[in-house]
């Protein structure tokens, strides 16, 4: 991942957008779990 070389703009966009979509999924799941953790001890 660290030594990726891009020859065209399309390659750069494909690389960054692909990783962005993967991390979006990771973020959604993590944030949901994080919210449940934060509000775990709520009285209501």
């Amino acid at each position: 991942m660290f030594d990726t070389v891009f020859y065209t703009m399309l390659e750069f966009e494909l690389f960054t957008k692909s990783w962005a979509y993967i991390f979006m999924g990771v973020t959604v799941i993590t944030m949901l779990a994080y919210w449940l953790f934060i509000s775990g001890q709520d009285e209501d």
Partner: protein
Amino acid sequence: MSNQHHPDTGRSSWITPFNVVAFIIVLIGLYLTYLRFTGGLAAITNLDDNYPWGIWISFDLLCGVALAAGGYTTAAACYVFGIHKYHAAVRPAVLTAFLGYALVVFALHYDVGQPWRLAYPIFVQPGTTSVLYEVGLCVFLYLTVLFLEWLPAPLEALKLKRVRNIMIKLTFVLTVFGIILSTMHQSSLGALYLILPSKMHPLWFSSHLPIYFFISSMFAGLSMVIFESTLSHRWYHKKMDKEHLEGTPHVTFGFAKAAAWIMGGYFFIKFFGVVLNANWAYLPTFYGMIFSLEMLGFVALPALLYAKGVRTRNIKLIRWTAVLAVLGIIFNRFNVSLVAYNYHLPSEDKYFPHIGEIGITIFVVTVGLILFKVIGNNTPIFYEHPDYKGSH
């Protein structure tokens, strides 16, 4: 009456450790002020053409504005979102914000070459296409709004009931103005750095800098309110009434929960900056280490500690986390404005603040603490005035 405040005049002796240290710092500050205004910027600063902005901008302005965000976040929570259990925190937060912004403007007088022209961009020659103009205008307007928001406290102390009642009626409008103005200039401070795509390190430079600055100001303000309430409880415990004492745990847990959530979101948004710009290659470098320390040590860690503190109802953990979060904001603003800025310059050309710059910064912070102490001792900030109980 159990809920009556207990006046603690503090008049037993003027010679306290705080007063002695503050007096010495003020004397040194006045001497440095004399040097600055007789010898120019070169007399007490290391600023040059490469670094026209030093720690007076990084700390006094960027950190000062971010940490004063507690004013708009607390007022918004109480008056706009209707969470009245945070009411006790509003006046201390507004006072902190007002003094924070007032000192930002005070410190700017040292930093600009011709401080007597500070009002020129607004009243004489508005540069309406400049981001800096927008920052200046917002800070000018928001300082005025904060002054008006703070005004009921001294008016109550001065027994000016009619004017005070008019100001109380304006509270909601002023709060809305405050939120709008804060949203604009907190983000514009980040937008100032958009002009530097080639001078800033890619890990910190992003077209989303305005969003990063605005979001980070939210948890900076919330953390600062927790930090300030911790110190106030130590220094002003005797002055606090029942509402204030009972309201503080609600404020601490509620604000910690909000800060934990916002910091979690901020961490991922910043992370997406790395992903979308393909900046992975910079992470194993020296600057990457600093960036990772900022993101993991001063964002992710305090977010998790806040969450843990809220979950386990550990108020002590939350208070220490607030210190970490405040340090994290200072670290971030220094990284953006000094560490990442001019990263390509050889080390001999890099900026390190002159002892005079550090002295003026300490002087400005000390002036803020003295004013907070004087105002906190003489106006109803930590208790409700007996004549106006439950009327605001």
